């Protein structure tokens, strides 16, 4: 109570006042919207669907397994499975979603859909400037609005995307190796059969 606390406090605020003109540490305000801070790499807002290659319909990784729809806590994902199949990145014919809607006014960004997806098809976006004046339709995103390329995914989550790509490449290599050994075995069997039939 001898007053030194007050003097120390006033010295600190004086340092703040003077320092705010010189160093960014003492003036941490960012004047949004003219200046923006880049979001952190682990930032997450709402989900989006990843597609490989150029055509979003052909390259969409989602196979409409509906696991994310079932696991979503507020039930904001609405999926309709197709009747036919089309080949996926590994060449296997898979179903695809004819309707994939996410209601972002309900979504709570819990990332459970991302964690449970076995196909690395749904990931979290970092885009947050999503205001619209259409309260109901504007906040219901269909699959065309949700589909974004793998290059975009690399841009927003570089390390995560690299890991996902490595994982998918490993899977592809494994499946390629399996098909190769299967093809070799089949070729060997086919080669063995005529050789055996030729006797």
């Amino acid at each position, binding site marked *: *109570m001898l007053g030194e606390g007050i003097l120390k*406090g006033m010295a*600190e605020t*004086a340092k703040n*006042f003077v320092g*705010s003109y010189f160093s960014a540490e003492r*003036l941490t305000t960012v*004047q949004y919207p003219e200046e923006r801070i880049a979001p952190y790499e682990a930032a997450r807002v709402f989900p989006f669907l990843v597609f490989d290659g150029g055509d979003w319909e052909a390259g969409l990784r989602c196979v409409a397994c509906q696991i994310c729809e079932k696991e979503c806590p507020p039930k904001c994902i609405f999926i309709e499975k197709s009747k036919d199949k089309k080949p996926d990145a590994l060449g296997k014919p898979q179903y695809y979603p004819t309707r994939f809607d996410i209601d972002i006014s309900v979504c709570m960004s819990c990332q459970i859909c991302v964690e449970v997806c076995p196909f690395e098809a749904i990931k979290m976006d970092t885009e947050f400037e999503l205001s619209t004046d259409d309260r109901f339709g504007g906040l219901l995103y269909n699959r065309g609005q949700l589909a974004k390329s793998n290059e975009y995914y690399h841009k927003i989550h570089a390390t995560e995307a690299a890991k996902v790509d490595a994982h998918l490449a490993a899977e592809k290599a494994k499946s390629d190796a399996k098909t190769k050994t299967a093809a070799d075995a089949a070729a060997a069997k086919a080669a063995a059969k005529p050789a055996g039939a030729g006797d």
Partner: protein
Amino acid sequence: MFEFLDQIFVILRHWLVSFLPAAWQQPAGVVMSVAVIVVLFPALFALTTVFERKGLARIQNRFGPNRTGPFGFFQPVADGIKSLTKEDIVPSSADAAVHFLAPVVLVVAVYMGFAVLPMGRNMVLVDMDAGLLFYFAMGASTELAVFMAGWSSRNKYSLLGAMRAVAQMISYEVVLLLSSVTVVMISGSLSLSKIVEAQNHYTWGLPHWYIFTPWGLAGFVMYAIAATAETNRSPFDLPEGESELVAGYHTEYSGFKFALFFLGEYLAMFSISGLGTTLFLGGWSAPFSWLGWVPSWIWFFSKLMMSIFVFIWMRGTLPRLRQDQLMNFAWKFVLPMCLLNLLVAALWRFLGDGWVKWAVCSGILIVAYVGMGLLEMRRGHIGPRSYRYAE
């Protein structure tokens, strides 16, 4: 040439008034000076609001207003337009006459205080023999206006705020008066222009301001504390504590009446800083004798703005005091120190010249300060903080 600059406003008034017939000259001169005061201090108030917002912002690591005009300096224009065009809401159960009169009484009482401040050499509006007493009389009237505002709103929170404000203002008014009495004792006059004249001497180039004496420094510190409390500024702004009482006694005021309260508070700040500079900081006298060529009104207003800056600095630094802490502080610590200061000032007068009076007076004040401080700390169990962390 510098004499001309120093007296430029007096000469200007004299010249403007000379166009009128002789019988009208004196009243016209007075009216002119009054008009200047009525216009100048609100302009200064507008500037101060920007300085305050930007100053507080920089202290708090952020920008202040920086969109309206260059560096936000047109913000008071925007604020003024806003308060003029806002709807004036008077609660239906409020006492309409008193509710209307309260801000008027406040602003009038505060403006009256400017009449006795010497803003430069020969630049007092009314040179009264009992100028200081007049100033405090007007200050007492502001308390009544605060009470009127709080009571007429018929709002429990406003009434609480008004009661707290009045209690605080009365307690610290005693401190204000007692710390000014030491100045009156030493300078021998209640007239503010004579007090400034008494400080306008220099020894070895250094001025004889009262703040450079032990009793003057103590008196100035106590005066500053009392001034902060009188104008309800942080850390004594519980009556208008925004987080506790909405807005205290001016909760129910909107639009122009609220602007009048705001104006009244800042004008009170100016006039009390003006009085403080007159009493302790030498008024319009220059800090060094070789700087005497700078016009006197420039010194007065720079000292005024420095005081305002210190007010803003304290607002940004200190947390708010609780009502009982405030009152305890006033009656148990500051008031005894004030009375002791009176004694020390008297000793100063009678101990003759030389180093003896400096040593004795400083010694008494320091011992008393440290002693009472430690006593209060022990009684309030205040010491270095100890922290308890959750396991």
